[in-house]
């Protein structure tokens, strides 16, 4: 399933532009395209979720038309928490390393080091889990944004309501699941709505919903570094925002690609009516 990562500090601001652009640009065609190749790079995905065991996935980039499963085994992955616990993670399946001891705790810091086989790559990272923020209410309704022929607009609007703490700068990531499958993830900060009762709009044009589907949203409080990493994806290769196509800045030193996130977890579900 195709998923998308979207973010918008001010929800919906770009919708008029998207529509305007789309009215004028609706002809598309598949073309032949010859891709360059590039040397393979290490990709690190590491997370310490609240009250769950930490996990690290190591892989490498592949050429554009190759199979996208180039997992990295036999690496030495060491995780340390703020209480002095240090643990070498076990490879539970190829490229996937899991903790047996360290579970995420809000306010706590974690550090990670990864050494690949033969010492080809050596990377380090640190992240601190913010305080938790909870979803007050989750709503799903049919879209009220007008439809335009030839323009993909969301059929459904998913609105997450939460209260932003006033005394700190907050960064959030929302992961949406429909019947257990990830449909969209979305990052947001409180630049425009610090301390407000906030309503966040999860926009996804590819989301298909039917009555009886269960829609779940996981709200994560994340660090600024992780926010910046995911936010960068949303500014890339977008019709409206242009062609600033770059790799997001990673919070892992030594690797160009990937992130290390210690984040809170709060979930809510709703059945579509």
């Amino acid at each position, binding site marked *: 399933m*195709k998923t998308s990562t979207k973010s918008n500090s001010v929800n919906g601001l770009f919708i*008029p532009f998207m529509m305007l652009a789309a009215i004028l640009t609706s002809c598309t065609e598949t073309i032949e395209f010859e891709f360059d190749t590039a040397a393979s790079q290490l990709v690190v995905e590491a997370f310490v979720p609240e009250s769950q065991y930490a996990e690290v996935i190591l892989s490498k980039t592949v050429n*554009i038309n190759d199979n996208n499963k180039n997992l990295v085994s036999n690496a030495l992955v060491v995780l340390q928490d703020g209480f002095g616990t240090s643990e070498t993670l076990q490879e539970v399946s190829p490229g996937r390393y899991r903790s047996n001891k360290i579970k995420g705790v809000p306010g706590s810091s974690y550090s990670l080091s990864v050494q690949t086989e033969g010492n080809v790559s050596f990377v380090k990272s640190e992240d601190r889990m913010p305080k938790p923020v909870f979803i007050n209410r989750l709503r799903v309704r049919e879209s009220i944004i007008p439809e335009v022929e030839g323009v993909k607009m969301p059929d459904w609007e998913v609105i997450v309501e939460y209260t932003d703490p006033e005394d700190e700068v907050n960064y959030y990531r929302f992961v949406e699941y429909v019947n257990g499958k990830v449909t969209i993830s979305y990052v947001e900060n409180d630049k425009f709505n610090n301390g407000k009762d906030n309503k966040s709009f999860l926009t996804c044009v590819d989301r298909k919903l039917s009555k009886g589907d269960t829609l779940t949203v996981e709200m994560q409080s994340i660090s600024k570094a992780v926010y910046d990493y995911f936010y960068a994806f949303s500014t890339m290769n977008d019709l409206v925002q242009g062609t600033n196509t770059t790799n997001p800045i990673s919070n892992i030193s030594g690797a160009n690609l990937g992130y290390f996130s210690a984040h809170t977890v709060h979930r809510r579900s709703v059945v579509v009516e």
Partner: protein
Amino acid sequence: MKFFIDILFLLIFVSVLGAQNKYAISGTITDKVNGETLAGAAVTVNELPGTGISSNTYGYYALSLPEGKYTIRVNYLGYETVELEINLNQNIRRDIRMEVLATDLREVDVYPFKRNDNILLNNIGSEKLLVSEIKNIPVFFGEQDIMKTISLTPGATSVRDGNNGIYVRGGGNDQNLILLDEAIVYHPNHLLGFFSTFNSDAIKEMTLYKGTAPASYGGRISSVMDIRMKDGNNQSLEVNGGIGLISSRLAVEGPIVKDRGSFIVAGRRTYVDMLLKLTNDPSLSNNTLNFYDLNAKMNFKINPKNQVFISAYSGRDAFAVPGRFGLAWGNRTASFRWNHIWQDKLFSNTSIIYSDFDYEVDLAFEPSAFSVLSGIKNVNFRHEFNYFISENSRFMLGYDMLSHNITPGQLIADENAIVHPMKIQERNGREQTIYVSNEFRPAPNWIFNAGIRLNTFRLYGPGDFYKYENGMLSETITYTKKEIVKSYFSPERRLNITHIINPVQSVKMSYSTHTQHIHKITATENLSLPVDIWMMSGNNVKPQTSDLFSFGYFRNKQNDMYQFAAEAYYKLMHDQIDVKNGADVMANQHIEGELLFGKGRSYGLELMLKKKYGKLNGWIGYTLSRTELSIPGINNGNWYPARQDITNDLSIVGMYELSKNLTMSATWVYQTGNAVTFPSGKYEINGETKYYFNERNGYRMPDYHRLDLGLTWNLKSKGKYRGNLNFSVYNAYARKNAFSIDFEQDATNPDKTIAVMTYLFSAIPSITYNFKF
């Protein structure tokens, strides 16, 4: 190098003092039929070969000569040459009215005078277009467009469809100074760049300076586009108009007092939204999507020594879905100018100018109900003297004060809104410039024009001003109103030299430096949306500067019928600005911490072959160029091609008069695809495929080419009433030119990536009815 040039300038200005002459002939050069002033007409003396001056922007000229009998000759492109016999034994005022060259005189053999202005004028790197000469060029939706036409000349280019930004000699599209009757136009296009803001009914001419602009112009580092509105017919009332498929125009002009004053009012409006009403889609038919332009101007000659001009422009785009959202943006300009002739040789102009640009986005649907506002404006005072020292020298001295105000962004929301109202602090700055220049002929076949601009820029409070080190905030200082935050002094040099080898051959060269204090951060590279962020030079952003060298060879053949020009240039751009990877540029008080600074370079060869006269006329323009940037933090600091790097750029423009009433035209453009960044690998994050980018702008878009055709049919005239029908086809062979390319996973084989190209247009036919009475 710069030191020697400064010494040269000093010598030139000292030489002015030695000049001495007895009497002067002076006056204004105008079109006989409608009274429009003619700027840049060449005034020469038959008895003194190798002398001459050109009329200034208001058509004023003066020649100082020793007592004697002379034949004065006045040449202006497309007009019949005028010769005056004078007996100069006192100061003479002689206004000159010129007639448009009759069609039969356009055939070369019968015309007695040379038409080699291109050889004689000291104007390397400039291109002048009169609206009257481009009226047969085929156009998008029947709208004549001087900006689109200028991009068909070498050195000026637009990148792909739907982007009216013009890139001149590798410079960014925010590095062009676009002036409408001296007022700055910040956003020169409508409807996402498909139309320019310049309604051709109201425009007289445009001069593009790709290189060394005269010292009176400054503020941007790549080019000057000086657009002049018509003054209005001061002989008789005239109505012009046009009815097209998506827009209509109407212009009324006429004398206030015959020969002394005139006015023009011109309006244009599109009705794309009316077409939307015809669609079957009910949600679309109530939408607003349109733009309008309104130009107005009047001038009045109070007495032979004083003339005033008032001009104004307002244009606005609107896009709205009722009850949901609205989007509107526009430019406004106003200028008041006063010409005064102190004595025959000394002319002055005083201008007071205002211009602004703003945009507004309103969202009305829950949960996003609020407005975003942003704008930039300036007030400009200029005072300039033109001193016509002798028969071949003109001295210019001016003072220019330009106040800038930027409202970077405001969020307007009420109590219940989910967002807080927010205002990014306004910024105020002021530029003060003194400029001098002198055009003179040290020897009969040499023309020099040397100028200096001494520019100071000051950034003023009130507000909190930040300093960043490596992108991290290092210091915040609060300033009160009028307190100076930062100032820059920037001397700029301008030098043009022409050597006339013989009446059909010349070589020209130039060197210049330029400074820019107003910078644009583009949030949307691909489409021309108005949501750009403007900022001034300050603690973190240094003024952008450029150095330009150019050299050209000019040659005419067959009685000036064929005019050939070759120009080579090398341009260095300093303190160029780019945004960090993934930076948040929207409503960000700390945007200056998100910027990267580097340098750019551009070099190229421009060839142009023009045929100005005859049944078949037009031009072929070709540019071979390279533009690169080097910015620490991007591409490991290595040089990489700029987005506007287009290696080969070819334009062919042809107009053919089939009969007196039928003119056919065609243009064909070919461009190497511009540089873009596309992925070279992929990986997974959270089970999603992400693309890996290896090199900035390492790929090329597919080559761009397009043919446009036009046919103008003059209908039978009834008395004063004249009508014509203009048929045009844009993109006649329906080339699918790529607007963007996106990458998707193949639905059947997730390992494969497919490239999906978006293109804007297939062939677009249109018809416009134009009338005049």
